[in-house]
């Protein structure tokens, strides 16, 4: 695995021309991994946040701890646990492989690692917004004939939309930057599992590849700042729409 620091004759244009083939592939993969990780984990994140905020059930504290575990564990440990559970010979990995879903050393594994690492951030953001919803409004909806699912879909969900958007953008930004769990679980294979951070890491190992590193760092900073700005703008806009002002 030797990253090419300087590209030969370039036929590429725009960002990919500026970045070079390998770095462009890493950026594209990172975007794909982060978008998929965010979108697929979003429903689970909302459900988990709702369960933690509203339901009282045995094991609630355990679930809460599990959700927050990736936040406090060393990422490399999380990656190793993923390898044990979702690797080809892992508990779930073996079963899923028979269904044709393989995570180990695939971009899907990078998405899984990113989703797990971003999950606590997403759940926290959504849960905060659920805590801010007045249960009295939900009670009012139930007296008007809405069952619990409809109350959730027509009252709770629209009211927590700003929190969901914030959570999704935070999770996306976190997924873009995920390193430790990803490299442990799916390694650093250019074009397959090499994401923006692992590409930066690879280029850092190559003497004279600083220009590549700087470009990728700039891209990372731009994506992170863009995500924050978008999240801020969206949540203000949506909060205003929800409140009818």
């Amino acid at each position: 695995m030797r990253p090419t620091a300087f590209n030969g004759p370039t036929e590429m244009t725009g960002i990919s021309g500026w970045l070079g083939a390998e770095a462009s592939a890493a950026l594209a993969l990172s975007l794909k991994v982060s978008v998929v990780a965010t979108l697929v984990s979003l429903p689970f994140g909302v459900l988990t946040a709702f369960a933690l905020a509203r339901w009282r059930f045995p094991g609630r504290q355990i679930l809460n701890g599990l959700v927050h575990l990736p936040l406090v564990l060393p990422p490399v440990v999380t990656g190793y646990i993923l390898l044990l559970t979702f690797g080809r010979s892992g508990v779930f990995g073996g079963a899923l492989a028979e269904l044709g879903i393989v995570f180990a050393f695939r971009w899907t594994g990078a998405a899984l690692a990113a989703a797990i690492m971003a999950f606590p951030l997403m759940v926290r953001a959504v849960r905060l917004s659920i805590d801010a919803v007045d249960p009295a409004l939900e009670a009012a909806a139930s007296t008007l004939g809405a069952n619990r699912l409809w109350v959730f879909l027509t009252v709770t969900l629209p009211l927590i939309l700003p929190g969901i958007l914030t959570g999704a953008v935070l999770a996306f930004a976190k997924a873009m930057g995920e390193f430790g769990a990803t490299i442990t679980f799916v390694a650093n294979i250019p074009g397959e599992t090499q994401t923006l951070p692992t590409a930066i890491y690879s280029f850092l190992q190559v003497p004279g590849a600083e220009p590549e590193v700087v470009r990728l760092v700039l891209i990372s900073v731009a994506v992170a700042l863009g995500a924050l700005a978008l999240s801020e703008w969206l949540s203000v806009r949506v909060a205003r729409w929800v409140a009818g002002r």
Partner: protein
Amino acid sequence: MTLAVQIQQKWPSFALDVEFDAPPGITVLFGRSGSGKTSAANAVAGLMRPDTGRLVLGGRILFDTAAGISLPPHRRRIGYVFQDARLFPHLTVRQNLTYGRWFAGRDDDIEMDRVVEMLGLAALLTRRPSALSGGEKSRVAIGRALLSGPDLLIADEPLAALDEPRKAEILPYFEWLRDETGLPILYVSHSVTEVARLATTVVVLEAGRVIRQGDAAEVLGDPTVTPTGIRDVGALITARLVAHHSDGLSELDAGGIPLILPQISGSLGREVRLRLPAQDMILSRARPEGLSALNVIPGTIISIRDGEGPGALVVLETAAGRVLSRITRRSVAAMGLASGMTCYAIVKTVAIAAPDAGG
């Protein structure tokens, strides 16, 4: 349709144990704050689950611990008008109004149009709740509950959060509901004015128990029932509007006794409920002359009750109905008042304020 209520619920520091019926018309759950009124209403709506009890609405069992039945709120068909309106902030007024209709599977525009017109909501339909005044929010909340096609309407202190002019604006809508819709209404209140204006039946709660229930005039005219304090004691009489005078006064006929009031609305011949606060009634042994007060009601003393303080409550039987007067014990002694004596109850026209007089 009648609601039969029987519920028991224990909390660490409070116990609710009530049994009452709510026939068609407005049944007011009356009592001071903390007497368990709202808990009882929430139990009826299914927002709170009592330990034991039974709730039957027009033959439909909503809740029965013995039979293991407890319908969830959304299947009880009970409209609830909350004190704080609880409109959905993310929906327009129109969407708020149609929210319950959709679940009830009704989309007849006629009823929608009628409610919108009756509550004066036409100009508000495209607005969001954040752009409504307190009174407008209340009206939308009433409309929303009505349009869900309920078998029973619960209103939990719907006027408590409003200022006096807004209260005067909303009260007639409840009178309209009582007189025109035939819907049984459970109305939670600690305001004797609202009870006097609206109640068909009164259920008086104290410390989680029903201490009295019955016809509004009967309960309010009973000097032994003073859930919100002696100052709120007063008689409830019914009179007929007979004339509007050019000097801004209206004349009513209460069992042959003429009563003069500040102008009230309505066409001649309409029935008006009048609350005569006991502490505004002056007693005289002789028919007074040269007096500014315009209303003199002759009657016979049927009882005199001494209170804990310096006051006494005198109950008169008159042609207009039972009338209560709260005077000092000193006056009782000085005038030599006793049961069976003929007496004149006098009240200033302006003492019968508009909120106390209603249809």
